């Protein structure tokens, strides 16, 4: 899109929002249609691919043995990494994760970690010595806006799809047995992102909307409706009133989304 075309498009978006409409015909509080497919990567212990509009994110889960952190000897470990794969957008470049990828990974990480979604105590093999490490790798394959929600949904879906090997402990050594069990989960956080354009709040911003957006706020909710993670982003601000509105909007959206997700 040329610079002039961009500017025209952005004006259109702003004008539409002004009239409480959006360029793709959604209302301000509409979420885009999404589809999730689980188990797309058979070689991973778990995986899920989401399409949210044209945004496409693949999450793969690997479960491997490792050592626990010294301060949590009885708990397995989770680590989240995000790659903005360069084929997903001409704005992504190869190389180690930049600021945007790191923020994305850490927001998804917090949603899962703070909701205590994974029962990490059940991932302990030998206390203080050996635990399971759950690697959550977010792979953005096409960028069409709202990577945060798409990645968070794909990550939880992938965890729900994850199996880990059965094992026994014989003489302090792990012996792998036949079969698999599902990864033990205790919660299923849903993350909703609200954008702000010219003092209007919109749900699930698309790529072009992100370009005119002042700022955004992403909120993760637990199964029982509590807030477990939050992140404001962008170079603008929210008044305290807007924070309350965004919170309510996110809350009701999360409930709707949870139903659609059947979590």
């Amino acid at each position, binding site marked *: 899109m040329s610079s002039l075309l961009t500017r025209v498009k952005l004006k259109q978006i702003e004008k539409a929002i002004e009239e409480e409409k959006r360029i793709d015909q959604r209302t301000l509080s509409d979420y885009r249609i999404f589809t999730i497919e689980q188990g797309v990567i058979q070689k991973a212990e778990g995986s899920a691919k989401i399409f949210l509009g044209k945004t496409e994110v693949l999450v793969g889960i690997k479960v491997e043995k490792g050592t626990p952190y010294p*301060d*949590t000897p009885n708990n397995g470990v989770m680590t989240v990494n995000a790659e903005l794969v360069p084929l997903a957008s001409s704005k992504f470049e190869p190389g180690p994760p930049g*600021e*945007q990828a*790191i*923020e994305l*990974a*850490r927001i998804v990480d*917090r949603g899962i*970690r*703070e*909701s205590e979604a994974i029962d990490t105590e059940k991932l302990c093999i030998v206390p203080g010595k050996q635990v399971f490490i759950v690697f959550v790798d977010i792979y953005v394959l096409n960028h069409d806006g709202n990577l945060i929600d798409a990645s968070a949904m794909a990550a939880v879906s992938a965890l729900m799809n994850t199996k880990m090997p059965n094992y026994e402990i014989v003489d302090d050594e792990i012996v792998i047995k036949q079969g698999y069990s599902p990864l033990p989960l205790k919660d299923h956080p849903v993350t909703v992102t609200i954008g702000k354009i010219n003092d209007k709040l919109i749900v699930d911003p698309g790529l072009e909307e992100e370009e005119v957006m002042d*700022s955004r*706020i992403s909120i993760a909710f*637990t199964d029982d*409706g*509590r*807030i*477990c*993670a*939050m*992140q*404001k*982003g*962008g*170079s*603008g*601000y*929210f*008044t*305290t*009133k*807007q*924070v*309350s509105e965004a*919170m309510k909007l996110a*809350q009701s959206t999360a409930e709707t989304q949870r139903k659609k997700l059947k979590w």
Partner: protein
Amino acid sequence: MNEKPKKLINKKGLRLDGRKPDELRPVKLKVGILPNADGSAYIEHGKNKILAGAFGPREMHPKHLQRADRMVLRCRYHMAPFSVPERKSPAPSRRENELSKVIRDALLPSLFVENYPRTGVDLYIEVLQADGGTRCASITAASLALADAGLPMRDLIVACAAGKVDNKIALDLMDTEDKIGAADVPVAYMPNLNAVTLLQMDGKLSPKEFDEAIKMAIEGCKKIYDIQKEALKTKYKIIEQEEVEE
């Protein structure tokens, strides 16, 4: 997480360091303490000790990062290796990278970036000692450093957190409370505009508890805001005096 399940609030309703739930830690601010920076500030917030230095606005290098229609703010939040109980490698961690970004996003709303096209401001934040709440204390100091560099502003940005300890909402958690506590909500704020410029959360809070926490955090911000303004005035008083003496 629950390594040491101590009581964080005693029977008298006081916290480990004797504070009441809605009480701030002591905050000290100094402006203009780095001779080579264009603007600088130093904060002691509880046991946190943090320096912020700003360079610019100046021509932006490398050129491909210049923006024809605005000033670019670059921000680096960095912890000294000796600032925490276990020595931290000086290479920036993912946490430091994320905080650099959210701090930048928290400060930008106060600036008139469109007035300084093609320029850049480099903001360096060095945490010399950390004791919980470094991102908030960093923002409070960094905003002063930007003001000290002579950048016009919509308002100063001030930041403070509130959280949940022993099932109670409490202001300005220190490290132990943050680690053992149930939730933490850092907030950055422009009082004049009633504008929230940073908002994060971890832990679990009901929407009602969250409401209470953000309100308490904003009250904290307002108190620190007075100290901020005083620090700025003091610096300019001293400068005025110096000019008179000359």
